[in-house]
Every structure is written in structure tokens, then in C-alpha cells.
């Protein structure tokens, strides 16, 4: 059984029917046969999009609740100095941001499969799969 590591874009897509990946992202969150996890960075990223992108402060609580539900399943993995050092190396090697690389490093270090809606920087480079 593979544990899937979700980045913030998957969580956001699941809550936004306008997103082209909404249906598969939502189906993934509602799937009861898969272990789902994320990293602590996702809390900041979803809250940031809800406030600054969606202009929807009321969306913050449900998004954070969704992450709490992942904490009860596969977990919300913590950033550490070691992890971010690895992320910095990956960011340099793959020309992606350290934020994206933090997800990639966490997936790699824990044997997880990264799932993202980021086709340009993650999926196209073989670093993640679409939901």
C-alpha cells in the first residue's frame, strides 16, 4: 500500500470546482483505501491562497480542518533542518523553488509518492503525479 503525499495544490483543487483537477483531487481525498499525508508547509500555503488568492477568509478553517484529517491518517510531516537542506539541493538541481522541493524531498526521504496539480514544475519533470 503506497502512501500518497499531497501538496497544497491538490487540497485547494479539491475545494475549488473551477479547478481542472477538481474531480480527481476530490475523489482522492474521499478515497477510503489510500493513506494520505502532507507536510506542515501546506497549512501556510492553503491559508495564504484562501486569503490572498481567493479573498475568502472563511475558507481557511475548512482547509485547515482537511489537513487535520490528513494528520489523523498518514500524517502531517514536519520540516526539519535535514529535510530543508535536501530540499535546497533538489531546488538547485531541478530548478524549482525550495517550497516545491520540500515536498519532493519529503516524498523521497519517506518512500512516498508525491501528488500535485503543478504540471509545469513538478509533474512534467517526473517529480510528482497528477491526482
Amino acid at each position, binding site marked *: *500500500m503506497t502512501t500518497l503525499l499531497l*501538496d*497544497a*495544490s*491538490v487540497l*485547494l*483543487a*479539491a*475545494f*475549488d*470546482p*473551477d*479547478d*481542472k*483537477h*477538481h474531480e480527481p483531487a*476530490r475523489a482522492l*481525498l*474521499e*478515497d*477510503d*483505501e*489510500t*493513506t*494520505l499525508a502532507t507536510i506542515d508547509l501546506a497549512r501556510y*500555503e492553503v491559508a*495564504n*491562497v484562501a*486569503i*490572498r*488568492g*481567493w479573498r*475568502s477568509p472563511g*475558507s481557511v478553517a*475548512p482547509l485547515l*480542518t*482537511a489537513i487535520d*484529517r*490528513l494528520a*489523523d*491518517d498518514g500524517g502531517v510531516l514536519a520540516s526539519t533542518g535535514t529535510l530543508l537542506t535536501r530540499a535546497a539541493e533538489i531546488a538547485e538541481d531541478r530548478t524549482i*523553488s525550495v*517550497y516545491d522541493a520540500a515536498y519532493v524531498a519529503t516524498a523521497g526521504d519517506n518512500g512516498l509518492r508525491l501528488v*500535485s*496539480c*503543478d*504540471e*509545469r514544475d513538478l509533474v512534467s519533470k517526473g517529480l510528482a503525479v497528477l491526482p
Partner: protein
Amino acid sequence: MAKVMVSLPDDLLSEVDAEARRTGTTRSAVMREFADRALRRRHEGRASAMRSLLAEEAAPHGGRSADQVKATRPDP
């Protein structure tokens, strides 16, 4: 199937063995079933909570989630 060594307190092991005798199976099979059941319950709990949450809270926000994440990150 991988073989692993697991440390268990004596009283818990006694209960596992009693369950194995009761169901006519092995210690390994009991532990496998308990682990599987516990994980399945965890997934089902998360999935059920997500279904309720998404039914109530999903709303149109313009899409492009991945771009939104990048656009709202702090500038380097």
C-alpha cells in the same frame, strides 16, 4: 511477504495468542488482520470526514490552484 521482528509487551502477546487460538489461526495472521483493520478504519474516518467537509465547503474560486500557490508565496 516481508518477515519482521516486533517487540510486544507480554500481556499483549498473550492476548494475541489467545485470539489466534480462538480463531484457529496464527499469531502472524492475527497481527496482520489487526494492523489492516486499524489502518482501514483510519482511512475510512478520514474519507468520511472529507466527504462531509467538501460537500459543505467546496465552492468556485477560479481554479488554477497550482498557480495560486506559487503566486501567493513570499517573494525570494
